[in-house]
């Protein structure tokens, strides 16, 4: 269970519904670890700054997180968290390991503007 203030994605179906019904979605898939927590926190802060983007987290170890773990974009990833940006239901960016606020801001400008 992720102890964050973000809304959690718990199932494949929830994720599918989320990306089908929202143009811009960012999901941070990880654990309560030192590389993941800063990304959840930054997502939380950015929720106010970017109200048009749906920010969520998903627990890496639940079976349904395979929907993220097995993405082709994540094939070479071996650091948590896996952070996926969806636009119109499609993956437009995926990152592995910790990202700074500036890096996330740059990605948002790149893929969501």
């Amino acid at each position, binding site marked *: 269970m992720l102890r964050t203030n973000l809304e959690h994605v718990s199932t494949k179906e929830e994720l599918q519904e989320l990306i089908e019904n929202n143009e811009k979605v960012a999901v941070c898939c990880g654990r309560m670890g030192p*590389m993941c927590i800063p990304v959840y926190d930054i997502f939380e*802060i950015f929720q106010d*700054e970017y109200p048009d983007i749906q920010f969520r987290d998903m627990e890496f170890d639940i079976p349904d997180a395979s929907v993220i773990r097995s993405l082709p974009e994540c094939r070479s990833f071996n650091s*948590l968290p896996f952070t996926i940006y969806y636009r119109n239901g499609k993956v437009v960016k995926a990152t592995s*390991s910790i990202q700074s*606020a500036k890096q996330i801001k740059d990605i948002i400008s790149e893929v969501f503007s």
Partner: protein
Amino acid sequence: MNQNSHFFDLIIIGAGPAGLATAIYTSRASISTLVIDQSSAGGQIKTTHQVANYPGFVEPVSGYELARNMRKQAEKYGTKFKLASEITAMNLEEVEKWVEIDSTRYTCKHVVIATGSSPRLLNIPGELEFKGTGISYCATCDGEFFKDKDIIVVGGGNSAMEESLLLLQYVKSITVIHQFDVLQAEKITADKIMQHPKVSILWSHEPRKFEKIGEKMVTVAENLKTKELVTLERDGIFIFVGMLPNIDLFKNLPLQFSPQGYIITNERMETNLQGVYAVGDVRDKPYRQITTAVGDGTVASLEVIRKN
């Protein structure tokens, strides 16, 4: 002058325990306080699994919870936060000081620098390029991706060796690359590593570049004594080479720094710039703990309250 301007008595740069402790005291004393951080609040403790030596907690407390509570406590007394924000310009040398974020100017009488320290990077080719796809900085996070694999650990200090002990639960072998010919870690930890059958150590070597060939990570390391280069092919690389003070923002200011780059203060946390204080891990001092950071913050806050 920018159109958007905001005035505070105190601006704290950095939202770790030192900055938050300062903010709790000053806000409670009705000093208008703004805390700015390029990330979220909490500093290094928010990513610490458990804190067992912070007074007042009989059982270990999660670092994440402790950080959240410190922030909530500061907010409760009126501290304002500007988080995930980059300072783009500043002037701390005049009586009225200011910092700018996204073209908004924040003006104040006092500044407390509490930017902490960060894991040191090697800054060699390939390091950033392969972060997350072969290069890691966290054994607890990424160790299991390397189950039954051969890896390299760069570093020989306490954190490198403690993380190596954790990695040994997963990996087939570890090659430690260390710049000296003796491990710097505490003897009890160093002995466990040196006696472990899965570990080999490349003494007096430093990595010079990282490459990826197929699924394998290639490390080119230099023998510091003979200058010869060796090439090692493994499945992954973990880097633990100490901490550095976060002073990039202040490098162009006439602040006094120690030879290691930490900001020098007196016992009242005053720097050589009037009205500018430094607290926590960014300050030149012998011990860096949550408790010493909070202590620094307390001293600086009382000075600010006295002088405001």
